[in-house]
């Protein structure tokens, strides 16, 4: 596979508010629960997956430094769109001044939709249909109060502006590989507010099987081994799963140093592996190789292999880094969290 396309700009966004897992546990289990993350991000009362996608997209545009009217595709992956029917892509495209000749779509594949958006836009660029396109993974995920998902379901977005392949760019998308089976580990039926999941079934047959299959499939096709990568990013529904996936595949903890953020921000769903990638780009050196493997329930994994380009150092400081967004945090208690999430009936 020759390189598909390049990332010419990237941006992440994490809402300002955080709730600690122990605060959630205080309310529901009297503090007995062992928390899968330390804390998670919470969107403000005027935020949704569209507004945080806008923030990330604007930072990506700022880093790319191109005229927004040159952007001809906007693919948004999310499982928490503000509308059941009515795209977010149109609003963001208008708000940022993208071309009206636009391939725009909202996509859903649980937490995998963000990486699939990247692959789709890269394919449009690679095929010559467009020159520049944007892919966004964004979610303001909700768990049923008291459900174990509530400890991790967080909010975040990351956007990537993709253009023709070039070593001068921020990173080059070298190889992609996707692996999908019908595995119902997590779902939300039409009209339901909160998702259902299958507890431990989510692990072995779902998360691990797909992540490992996609990662191995990509490495086999591309002729690469774990040690060929400087950085690896896995979908991160908690801290333990990605660490275990890395172990099983033969990656060392230092390769995951920048790609694992869920302990501090929770599971940002379609944005999770993308924010990990953004943090790698904030820190990586030109020439370094990166593997990103997402996982979406239902189920499937996308694996993307990238090489960091010369351009990364020039654009890094043009927008806030992931570290800054993680550090910009304000703790809220459970009552305020309920208010911000619109869960207090008035």
């Amino acid at each position: 596979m020759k390189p598909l396309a390049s990332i010419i700009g990237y941006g992440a966004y994490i809402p300002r508010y955080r709730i600690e897992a122990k605060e959630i546990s205080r309310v529901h289990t009297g503090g007995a629960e062992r928390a899968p993350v330390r804390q998670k991000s919470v969107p403000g009362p005027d935020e949704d997956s569209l507004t945080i996608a806008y923030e990330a997209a604007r930072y990506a545009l700022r880093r790319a430094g191109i005229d927004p009217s040159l952007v001809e595709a906007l693919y948004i992956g999310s499982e928490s769109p503000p509308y059941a029917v009515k795209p977010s892509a149109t609003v963001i495209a208008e708000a940022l001044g993208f071309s009206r000749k636009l391939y725009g779509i909202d996509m859903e594949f649980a937490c995998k939709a963000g990486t699939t958006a990247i692959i789709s836009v890269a394919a449009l660029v690679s095929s010559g249909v467009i020159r520049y396109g944007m892919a966004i993974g964004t979610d303001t995920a909700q768990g049923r109060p008291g459900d174990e998902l509530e400890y991790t379901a967080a909010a975040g977005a990351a956007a990537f502006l993709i253009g023709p392949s070039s070593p001068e760019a921020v990173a080059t998308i070298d190889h992609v590989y996707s692996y999908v089976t019908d595995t119902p580990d997590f779902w939300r039926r039409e009209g339901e507010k909160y998702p259902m999941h299958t507890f431990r079934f989510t692990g072995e047959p779902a998360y691990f099987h797909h992540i490992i299959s996609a990662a191995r499939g990509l490495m086999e096709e591309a002729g690469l081994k774990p040690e060929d990568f400087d950085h690896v990013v896995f979908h991160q529904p908690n801290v333990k799963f990605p660490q275990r996936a890395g172990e099983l595949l033969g990656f060392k903890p230092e390769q995951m140093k920048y790609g694992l953020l869920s302990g501090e921000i929770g599971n940002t769903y379609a944005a999770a592996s993308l924010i990990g990638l953004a943090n790698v780009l904030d820190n990586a050196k030109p020439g370094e190789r990166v593997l990103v493997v997402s996982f979406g329930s239902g189920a499937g994994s996308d694996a993307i292999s990238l090489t960091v380009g010369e351009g990364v150092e020039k654009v890094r400081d043009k927008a806030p880094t992931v570290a800054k967004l993680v550090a910009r945090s304000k703790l809220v208690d459970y009552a305020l969290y309920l208010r911000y999430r619109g869960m207090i009936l008035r």
Partner: protein
Amino acid sequence: MAYLRSVPRVWREREIKYRLIGGACRSCGRRFYPYRQTCPACGSEEVERVKLPETGTVEVFTVVRSPPSEFAEQAPYVVALVRLDDGTLVPAQITDVDPGEVYEGMRVEAALRRYRTQGERGIIEYGIKFRPLIQ
């Protein structure tokens, strides 16, 4: 409340509201928000549409504690006049802050946020608010 729940109205205003589109008068040089064809200062019809800068400073602010009905659930919230970096003054909410955290001179950045919804079933109205600059 038909006046507040109009979809065509929101649609018509979207570009000015989403992108901070202002006017720049070719005759007297005044810049203003929102855009319109006639300069409010000198009456000239020679007004250019301009995308206003997305960063500025809180010039004056207040905390709305007794809100209009459509904003009842948001109170108390902060509204301000923000002096954009080109000198244009824009009315907007300040978000991602507690009322006690805002001060005159605070550096802020534009962000698309939800302003209100047309009830439970109607559309969501987005617009530009300002939040502290992330540096």
